[in-house]
């Protein structure tokens, strides 16, 4: 007996030694979930618009791209020993909800709940470099944003994304019933069938099908009262800690509550300790391909193949057809990904409105940055915290201002940041400021909010400038300098970008129109009824207009040095009512908003007249190779542009401007989304009173847009004494409308 006991002890000791040397290579499932979660989140647009990170989730930081860092984190969270803390039984108090297991060589018999693990760095390690909790992500994020060197910035931001990946790993594990029903599942002895099934379909079209639509949690769960053991609201993504009579199949429950209450694991099929699911939840059995299945027809989520009949009246999950795990996967995977995406979005939710003050000093360099700042985060209040301004050129750090105390609220307040130690030249290319606030936000006591702001640094009159912020969500604002002249205001207000995807089959494009229709409830309208009469086809596309290019209107300050944007849409287009053709616009110009090609002056041989612009966009004689990418590249290149970022950001988006007093709101609407909606509501008068024949100043503005969605659009208002595009044209008539 002693020999046996000794052998067991020796074996255990050896195993401990061996396993402690293993660095876990996470089940590839986590990498797949995380990649999809990042893609489903708003992170890409956020990085572009608020942090001026042009590559978005594909930006390269410290050896990996952003999404790869998140994947890395979700993989490394299973590193040696950490996995013991990835269990959470929502039916228990949180300090007892972790894995409870028989003595074994790997995990303690009692382990920390994943809910606590994710926000208790002290439980993870005393060494900060081995901590990957929410607070560590926050710290690394703020450190990265405010780093004074590029190297540190890249390293900290990379580590931020990795840490976030480690946190979302916990959400993903909570989607596995074995993890929420205290069912340890060691390989060989007792592997978890569901995890095995998911691994078996990874990379297949089946997996892509099952995860093509994700399920997000109802964000209201984040506002539920806190549990002092894990007070940061992300706990609710796993467990809302709310009493529930029966399990919910809705999105108002945490991931663990859902998987625990609605589904079972291999070893917890109708076992004691779990009231639900129960035998009474089952419907009548049915046979399919030699297997007797039972559906779940009550008590929350309904499942077609819930359990199968085993011998001696028992049940099993691992049926020979794999239909049970397929059904489980169909329920759980969309949530695992959607809830992970929600956590990422929650991390980056804090937004600041930043307005450059009008009294900016106009010396050779910027030494003081006066701004107005306010919290514009949805439904969450901020308070006393620290704020810092960081100057970037593109994504490269130029200077960091000293931190300031601020009591931040909804009302804009003035604050000036000091850059006197490292003055910033006016002519810095792609000058961009990030304001980073650290302090309370909603229920999170130590949060981070940011606001990005580009800085106009060209020859345009800075006092007559406006900036459009265009994140991925259909909502943003145009900020207008209070001192902007009425003319400038009109020009800016008349700029609209309509962006659609392009029809890849149709290789050639013509321009199209959008008009604001006061007879149709003040909506922008689109039509294609008489397009053939109003717009000349391209030479290679004379038979149809399935593919069109619509381009944003800009004026040309200097015909030889203009910048601009193409706006492209697919398969449909906007039309001018009663239009007579290019250059012969019979439209009622007082309510017409035209979308034009931006043409380099040098490539516009017809001069500056509108008629010439209409017919000499470069498109009428240009043919493009099929394929979106080629078209896009060639299109931009033909006008001297460089394609930057992802042209698909242009797809399926419509930008509209809303004018209210001194502000304009730009909405971006998914025009090819549900209902294929191409009608954009405008709630105030965009333009009015203008008449054909008006002789207002022409477009002397330019647009400098690399990535209109997800990155700032700089709208340049007319400079004083700038050029004109031809004041007698219809184009200019419209521009001259008074507000």
């Amino acid at each position, binding site marked *: 007996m002693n020999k046996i006991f000794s052998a067991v002890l*020796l074996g255990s000791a050896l195993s401990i030694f061996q396993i402690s040397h293993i660095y876990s290579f996470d089940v590839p499932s986590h990498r797949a979930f995380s990649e999809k979660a990042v893609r489903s989140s708003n992170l890409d647009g956020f990085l572009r618009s608020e942090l001026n990170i042009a590559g978005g989730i594909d930006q390269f930081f410290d050896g990996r791209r952003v999404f790869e860092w998140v994947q890395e984190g979700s993989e490394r969270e299973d590193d040696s020993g950490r996995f013991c803390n990835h269990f959470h039984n929502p039916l228990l108090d949180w300090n007892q909800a972790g894995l409870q297991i028989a003595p074994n060589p790997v995990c303690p018999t009692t382990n920390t709940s994943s809910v606590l693990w994710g926000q208790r760095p002290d439980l993870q390690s005393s060494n900060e470099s081995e901590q990957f909790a929410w607070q560590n992500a926050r710290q690394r994020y703020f450190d990265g944003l405010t780093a004074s060197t590029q190297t540190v910035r890249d390293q900290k931001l990379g580590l931020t994304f990795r840490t976030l990946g480690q946190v979302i790993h916990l959400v993903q594990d909570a989607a596995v019933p074995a993890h929420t029903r205290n069912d340890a599942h060691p390989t060989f002895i007792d592997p978890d069938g569901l995890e095995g099934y998911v691994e078996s379909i990874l990379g*297949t079209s089946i997996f892509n099908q099952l995860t093509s639509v994700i399920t997000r949690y109802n964000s209201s769960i984040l506002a539920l009262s806190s549990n002092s053991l894990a007070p940061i609201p992300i706990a609710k993504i796993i467990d809302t800690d709310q009493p529930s009579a029966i399990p919910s199949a809705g999105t108002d429950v945490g991931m663990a509550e859902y998987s625990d209450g609605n589904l079972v694991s291999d070893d917890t099929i109708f076992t004691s300790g779990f009231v639900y699911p129960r035998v009474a939840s089952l419907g009548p059995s049915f046979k399919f391909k030699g297997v007797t299945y039972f559906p779940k027809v009550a008590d929350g989520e309904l499942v077609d193949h819930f359990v199968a009949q085993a011998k001696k009246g028992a049940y099993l999950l691992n049926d020979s057809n794999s239909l049970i795990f397929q059904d489980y996967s169909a329920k759980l995977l969309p949530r695992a990904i959607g809830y992970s995406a929600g956590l990422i979005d929650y991390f980056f939710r804090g937004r600041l409105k930043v307005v450059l003050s009008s009294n900016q000093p106009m010396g050779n360099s910027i030494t003081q940055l006066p701004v107005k700042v306010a919290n514009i985060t949805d439904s969450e209040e901020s308070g006393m915290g620290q704020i810092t301004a960081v100057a970037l050129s593109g994504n490269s750090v130029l200077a960091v201002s000293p931190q300031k105390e601020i009591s931040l609220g909804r009302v804009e307040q003035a604050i000036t940041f000091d850059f006197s130690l490292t003055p910033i030249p006016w002519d810095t290319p792609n000058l961009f400021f990030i304001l980073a606030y650290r302090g309370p936000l909603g229920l999170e006591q130590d949060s981070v909010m940011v606001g990005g702001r580009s800085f106009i640094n060209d020859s345009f009159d800075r006092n007559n400038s406006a900036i459009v912020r265009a994140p991925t969500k259909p909502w943003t604002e145009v900020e207008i300098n209070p001192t902007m002249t009425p003319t400038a205001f009109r020009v800016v207000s008349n700029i609209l970008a309509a962006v659609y995807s392009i029809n890849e089959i149709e290789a050639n494009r013509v321009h199209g129109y959008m008009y604001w229709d006061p007879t149709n409830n003040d909506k922008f309208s689109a039509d294609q009824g008489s397009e053939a009469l109003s717009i000349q086809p391209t030479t290679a596309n004379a038979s149809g207009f399935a593919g069109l290019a619509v381009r944003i209107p800009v004026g040309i300050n200097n015909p030889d040095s203009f910048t601009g944007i193409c706006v492209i849409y697919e398969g449909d287009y906007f039309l001018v009512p009663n239009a007579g053709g290019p250059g012969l616009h019979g439209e009622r110009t007082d309510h017409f908003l035209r979308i034009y090609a931006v043409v380099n002056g040098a490539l516009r041989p017809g001069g500056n007249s509108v008629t010439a612009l209409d017919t000499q966009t470069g498109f009428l004689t240009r043919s493009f190779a099929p*394929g979106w990418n080629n078209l896009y590249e060639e299109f931009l290149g033909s006008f001297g542009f460089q394609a930057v970022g992802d042209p698909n950001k242009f797809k399926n988006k419509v930008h509209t401007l809303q004018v209210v007093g001194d502000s304009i709101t730009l909405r971006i609407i998914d025009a090819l989304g549900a209902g294929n909606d191409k009608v954009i509501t405008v709630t105030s008068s965009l333009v009015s009173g203008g008449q054909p024949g008006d002789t207002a100043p022409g477009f002397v503005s330019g647009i400098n847009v690399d990535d209109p969605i997800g990155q700032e659009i700089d709208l340049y208002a007319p400079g004083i004494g700038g050029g004109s595009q031809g004041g007698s044209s219809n184009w200019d008539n419209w521009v001259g409308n008074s507000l």
Partner: protein
Amino acid sequence: MRYFIKSWVYLLFFSLSFDPLVYAQLGPYHGRVIDAETKQPIIDAAVLAIWQQRAPAPHPIITYHDALETLTDLNGNFTIPGMVGVPTDPNAVIDEPRFTIFKPGYEAVGGRRLKPVPLAVQEDLKVKDNVYEQNGIIVVELKRLTTREERLSNLRTLSSFSSCLPAEIAARLNSPTGLPYCIPEEKHLNLIRLRDIEEESVGLTPRRPRNGGQK
């Protein structure tokens, strides 16, 4: 009682040793990569097989074991020799390999097992698997991608495994190279080369100067 039994099962299990070769003889793998639409062979597609070893724990521990790579020939055929190796952990077994198959412009196979999903599942979901067996050969159909968005998204699916970081970064991040969680660069040079070409062609910032992978 169940708790007691499990405890003894754990202890007994860990006290036993396995003959890893029993589990490690996996392969060889023969296959053919074709265009999903034209059914024509796809030449010079990178085919990477990654073997992982799986050790027992309350949650399975999976580590990198080895990887082999090749390119498809003129007929789209490839052969990956069988893996014969011993797990570094005597308690672990070597899993069936996961395959990543990539040719720029085509939808990648990202880290999947090279066997078809059960037919019952395909029928139930009404989704056809792009890997199937035909006359004893595994056929992999790759769909041609047409838009930049598709190609960009496709590139992200190539990250189904972790490619090792440069040593200096790995050391700083407390993940020394040599520890088996990532795939060493020299094990997938062709895939890296093709990925870099594709990344460049869709306008992504290059991550490194190109270096050639050899068949």
